[in-house]
């Protein structure tokens, strides 16, 4: 038995050492190679990559705002940081890092029913786990991890996060990163068009917003005030929207509600996402509202 236990102990030590080395290697590559997701891209940005503006949100930003179109019309440089499935928590992580890196002075955030999402930790939080050892990011993770020690385990157990989320952070993505295969969305500045059409134009969409102020949004607003950042909130178009966004209007600075601005179903992929025709239409509205009518403070632009 002693011999067996000794063998198991040796194997365990080898596994632990292997895990530490793999963890260090993976993290190094994520920090230094081609970006394979939006958090990697953000963490690789430097002050010289400054932008006139940046848009944040979920797939309702990703598929709805064509940054290249805006650049053609206004020459203003921007980036669409929409991540499918993002809640306010992930938006906050992105915004914090963008501000920390002094990338832009003008931030636009898409907000709708995600107002109600106080706690996240969903699919798109995973992409941030690579950077969990950064103090400011770890502080944020602690805020959403009050009831369990999941993220503590990811921080403290070497390689656990890369093992658990192998398909998003692991070997395959690493090989892509090392071979220089950049995300397709980088060339289109984060925008991904959809090409379908709404199938059932009878469907409506509604939601009820909580009265309570979303704590992550509060943090974003405070940070932007402190850093003197122009912050704008908006709601992307929704087909046949039956709810109301009064709570957002009353709570958020510089809020603009576009929810009912495009009534025709031909512009939609589904109730909450525009197709390519719709994104073209909406991008122009967005541009006229914000980027043509206002003078941006471009203090960080070289």
């Amino acid at each position, binding site marked *: 038995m002693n*011999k*067996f236990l000794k063998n*198991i102990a040796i*194997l365990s030590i080898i596994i632990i050492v*292997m895990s530490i080395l793999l963890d260090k290697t993976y993290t190094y590559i994520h920090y230094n190679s081609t970006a394979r997701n939006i958090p990697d891209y953000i963490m690789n940005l430097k002050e010289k990559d400054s932008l006139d503006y940046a848009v944040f949100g979920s797939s309702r930003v990703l598929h709805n705002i064509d940054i290249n179109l805006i650049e053609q019309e206004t020459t203003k440089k921007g980036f669409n940081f929409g991540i499918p499935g993002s809640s306010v928590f992930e938006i906050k992580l992105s915004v914090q890092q963008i501000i920390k890196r002094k990338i832009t002075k003008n931030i636009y955030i898409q907000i709708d029913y995600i107002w109600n999402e106080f706690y996240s930790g969903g699919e798109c939080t995973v992409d941030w786990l690579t950077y969990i050892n950064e103090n400011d990011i770890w502080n944020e993770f602690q805020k959403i991890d009050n009831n369990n020690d999941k993220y503590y385990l990811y921080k403290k157990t070497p390689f656990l996060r890369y*093992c658990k989320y192998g*398909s998003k952070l*692991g070997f395959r993505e690493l090989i*892509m990163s090392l071979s220089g295969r950049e995300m397709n969305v980088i060339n289109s500045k984060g925008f991904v068009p959809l090409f379908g059409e709404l199938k059932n134009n009878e469907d409506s969409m509604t939601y009820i917003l909580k009265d309570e102020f979303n704590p992550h949004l509060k943090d974003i607003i405070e940070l932007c005030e402190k850093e003197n950042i122009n912050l704008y909130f908006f709601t992307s178009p929704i087909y046949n929207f039956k709810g109301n966004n009064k709570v957002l209007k009353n709570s958020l600075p510089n809020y603009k509600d576009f929810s009912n601005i495009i009534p025709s179903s031909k512009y939609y992929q589904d109730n909450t996402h525009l197709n390519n025709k719709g994104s073209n239409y909406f991008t122009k509205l967005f541009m006229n509202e914000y980027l043509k009518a206002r003078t941006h403070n471009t203090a960080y632009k070289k």
Partner: protein
Amino acid sequence: MLFNSIDFAIFLPIIFILYWFITNKNLKSQNLLIVLSSYIFYGWWDWRFLSLILLSTVIDYLIGINLSKQESQTKRKILLWTSILVNLGFLGFFKYYNFFLDNFITAFSFFGTNINANSLNIILPVGISFYTFQTLSYTIDVYKRKLEPTKDFIAFSAFVSFFPQLVAGPIERATNLLPQFYTKRSFDNKNAMIGIRQIVWGLFKKVVIADTCAQYANEIFNTYEIYSSTTLIIGAVCFTFQIYCDFSGYSDIAIGTSRLFGFKLMKNFNYPYFSRDIAEFWRRWHISLSTWFRDYLYIPLGGSKVEKYKVIRNVFIIFIVSGFWHGANWTFIAWGTLNALYFLPSMLNNKNRRHLNIIAENKNTPSLKELFFMAKTFILVVFAWIFFRAENIQTAIAYIKKIFVFSLEIERLRIERYSIEIFPLILLLIIIEWFGRHQEFPLLKDNKYQFKTILIIFFILVLGNFSDMNDFIYFQF
């Protein structure tokens, strides 16, 4: 509890320590620990179904004792049939009730009679097909006087519920496993290390190969309409490796875990994809089930020692029942029938035992002839798996029809995070298995630094799929 979960990684060392350090002085307490830990293992999934295992255990235990006391052949038959009906009754209700009901309704509506009957919302208890067959083997062997019935209820309960093989086999015979609960187990370092290596090898097959292949197979089978011929063939090949690595991986973990506790379970897979004909394939695939059907169904029906038409009948019965054992769906019946059709010519020509040796024995590479036979068998097996994997018969036929609209185009799959690494992985598996085919499993032998084992652990850490934690396919059967 899944073998590839953190829960099991914590559970196993605890039970191991209790088993060898606390209860090691007393055989009964060791057996009791096995029963309790097995019930925890099973109850982790759904504690309500523990009652089924307990009931099955009590009934077969009592029937076994009564069979030994009873001299009247009629009464012995009644006892045997009571056990068969109770066990198959549970299985039939939980697994096949809705299938038969739906088919009766369809059949009657075909003749113009509408029957109003609703399907029940039944959850299939994990592993019911496995432990039912295991307890049945006990009663049948006691009835045939091949085995003395046990009077030790704890040992019998441990035999029925032994956690390493409870939910997905190997389906052990009472004649092999039950006596191991009567004798004191002593710890053997060499055997335990082999157990560890077998667990590592099983995990590699499950989390590296099977779960990666699953990404491709699921995508291609679920949306086969949008893919062309070559992609559909790739989907079928991926499923072929998925099901093998998933199921044989489970068996390896089960056998390896048993070794840690001093038990020897039967071999369940013997490199089936290196078979040279279908008969050889069935001697190498899911051995515990094939031999179960051979001993308790095929031979009692007369086996091959009857008239030709009866041999044909017997072959069809055994393959169709085997298919139906896998699930209440016509696809499994079609899969069984297809295998019967594959198998029958060699059976009728007395060529079914042509290949009893190891392929390319004492050689590194197979001859061209062997390669040809292997490839032919593999293609037949892949084709049959399409029925096994498809949602229903219509889908299977549509899938096959699309394959025969030949096209060399390979579409980009709609799998966001995966790419072509599946082919090197499958090749790696084939190479390791080919050079390990003379052994029970490729990692059976290792040097004193456990170099091969460490390398496989490295592969598991780097290439394993832990995010899309998949149940073992055979849990559903």
